[in-house]
């Protein structure tokens, strides 16, 4: 049994309209997503804005209401996470995208990090402070930081405070929603390295949501590519980057900038070629409604949303 299993997940948001503001339609933000991941691995959820990747992550942790489908974690059904036990809930945590807005500016670091502890564990003031200090040191900040406020830290340090808060309850699964996209390159490297370190130390499992394929390739073991609420392709890093099959994945992979200027001409030509292919065969890869078909395996690890008859 997989550590986390998401089966046919659907998250639909109602669209209000008409004179009485009735629900006239639904936005199918996530429309039938299934995947599973093993403990200790990093699973990348990739897509462009509006693909439903963030909604998927938020639905798993209960921040978006699940319309249909099933999510099971370590043998527990957590489709309705509010009904799941406390110990299950504290094992799943989230890291947010923007280190500038995800921390309450009026709270001290101590209170920010202690918040999950206060919700789930009854600790004395003394114990709490000790735990927070340990956490702060673990993420590489000085113990005095706990009496400071978020604005006294740089972006990378703030993101580490966010990480400290997420790992305060010794979780097993962390959903990281674009944790480095608001950060500079050198700071991004800090946070990525650090996430890898604590993964090793604490045996963490990550769902890493991102749009930067360079970062995804660096961090992830398996990857799911989303487009308009559906999966278009899933596979290992090698499958996706070296052998992309779906035209959308190909286009996405081709768009990764190459840091070597010598490859410039070749890359641009390749991109144009892919773009032509994309325009020419778009209709073959997507159904009448512009949505992806369901996934079909082409190897043990590699699944692609190919048309029914072909």
């Amino acid at each position, binding site marked *: 049994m997989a550590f986390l299993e998401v089966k046919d997940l659907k998250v639909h948001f109602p669209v209000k309209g008409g004179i009485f503001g009735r629900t006239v339609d639904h936005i199918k933000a996530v429309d039938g997503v299934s995947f599973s991941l093993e403990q200790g691995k990093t699973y990348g959820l990739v897509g*462009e*804005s509006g693909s439903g990747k963030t909604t998927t992550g938020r639905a798993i942790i209960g921040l978006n209401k699940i319309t249909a489908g099933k999510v099971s974690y370590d043998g527990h059904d957590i489709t309705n996470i509010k009904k799941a036990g406390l110990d299950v809930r504290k094992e799943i945590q989230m890291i947010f995208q923007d280190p500038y807005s995800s921390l309450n500016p009026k709270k001290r670091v101590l209170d920010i990090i202690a918040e999950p502890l206060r919700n789930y564990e009854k600790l004395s003031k003394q114990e709490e402070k000790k735990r927070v200090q340990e956490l702060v040191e673990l993420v*590489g*900040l000085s113990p005095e930081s706990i009496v400071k406020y978020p604005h006294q830290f*740089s*972006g*990378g*340090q703030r993101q580490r405070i966010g990480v400290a808060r997420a790992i305060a309850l010794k979780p097993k699964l962390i959903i990281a929603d674009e944790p480095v996209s608001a950060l*500079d*390159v*050198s*700071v*991004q*490297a*800090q946070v*990525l*390295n*650090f996430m*890898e370190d604590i993964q090793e130390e604490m045996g963490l499992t990550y769902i890493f949501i991102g*749009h*930067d*394929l*360079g*970062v995804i*390739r*660096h*961090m992830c073991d398996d990857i799911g590519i989303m487009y308009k609420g559906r999966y278009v392709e899933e596979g290992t*890093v090698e499958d996706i*980057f070296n052998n992309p099959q779906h035209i959308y994945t190909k*286009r*996405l992979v*081709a*768009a*990764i*900038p*190459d*840091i*070597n*200027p*010598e490859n*410039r001409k070749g*890359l*641009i030509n390749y*991109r144009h070629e892919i773009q032509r292919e994309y325009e020419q065969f778009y209709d073959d890869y997507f159904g009448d409604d512009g949505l992806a078909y369901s996934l079909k395996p082409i190897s043990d690890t590699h699944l692609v949303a190919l048309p029914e008859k072909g």
Partner: protein
Amino acid sequence: MNEKLLEIKNLKTSFRIEDRYYAAVDDVSLTVNENEVLAIVGESGCGKSALAFSLMGLHNRAKIEGDVLFKGDDVTKYSAGQMNRLRGHEMSMIFQDPLTALNPLMRIGDQIGEVLLLHNKKLSNSKRKSKAVSLLERAGIARPEHVYEQFPHELSGGMRQRVVIAIAIANDPEVLIADEPTTALDATIQSQILDLLNELKEDMNAGIILITHDLGVVAEMADRVAVMYAGQIVEVADVHDLFGNPQHPYTRSLLSSVPNAESIDSKLHVIQGIVPSLKNLPREGCRFRSRIPWIDGAAHEENPRLHEIRPNHFVRCTCYKDFYFPDEEKGDQNHGIS
């Protein structure tokens, strides 16, 4: 040889914080030639955007020293009226966030029409419209006539950036400054916008200043690259030279902190410490010194200046000669937690 369009000489842009001026751009000298993309790369707070805004005269309350020569004319001495005739005409700019760069209450057509009218008062209404529509088309917008009538909020981010570009190229500028033009966009949209900029460069013969933090974008677009750190240029070179043979410790550190195909099984390089804030910038000696504490202090120059180490390849400070990555020697190094 391409003609020199813009010559920046010892430019210094200072902002006032609590009764004192602090230079965000400190003694920057650069040239931009015709039909060339000069990338200015650096992390947030390095002064690259402040530099771009200084060139366009868009700072409200900043002290600007030094010269900016546009075809030999010092624009820092220009009157407000002269500057207005230059901006949007010979020199124009593309902004980072297409979602906020357009007036939400004006139709797209009027926003493009405005820049046309400002620099050609005699343009008739019908000519203005046909010009605006053809600009939208040139910026790669399908159904330009339809978009002409629309409001910004009706367009996607990528489309809006195309509109911003249409405004910038409306009067065939000779210098085009693109300030993080693709940062706010999705990867596939980013490559389309870069494509567009490349096309435009070809047929405009303009000099493009590309401001970015994304080394991938630099590698794909630039002809020459200037790396900025803490308000100063630390390295300038031809793009192939810079990526193939980077010299300054900051350039080398930055390049090795980018995840790429080779980095999958290894740790990324992390620059120790943090980028100093404007108030706390080291003003004496090598500004990068505190970020590479394992390098012998004697390796730094007392008054670091740009050395031309090869034709057209400049590096600031002498510390590059003795630089090595910590793990190159000791093999293991904690990753620079501050």
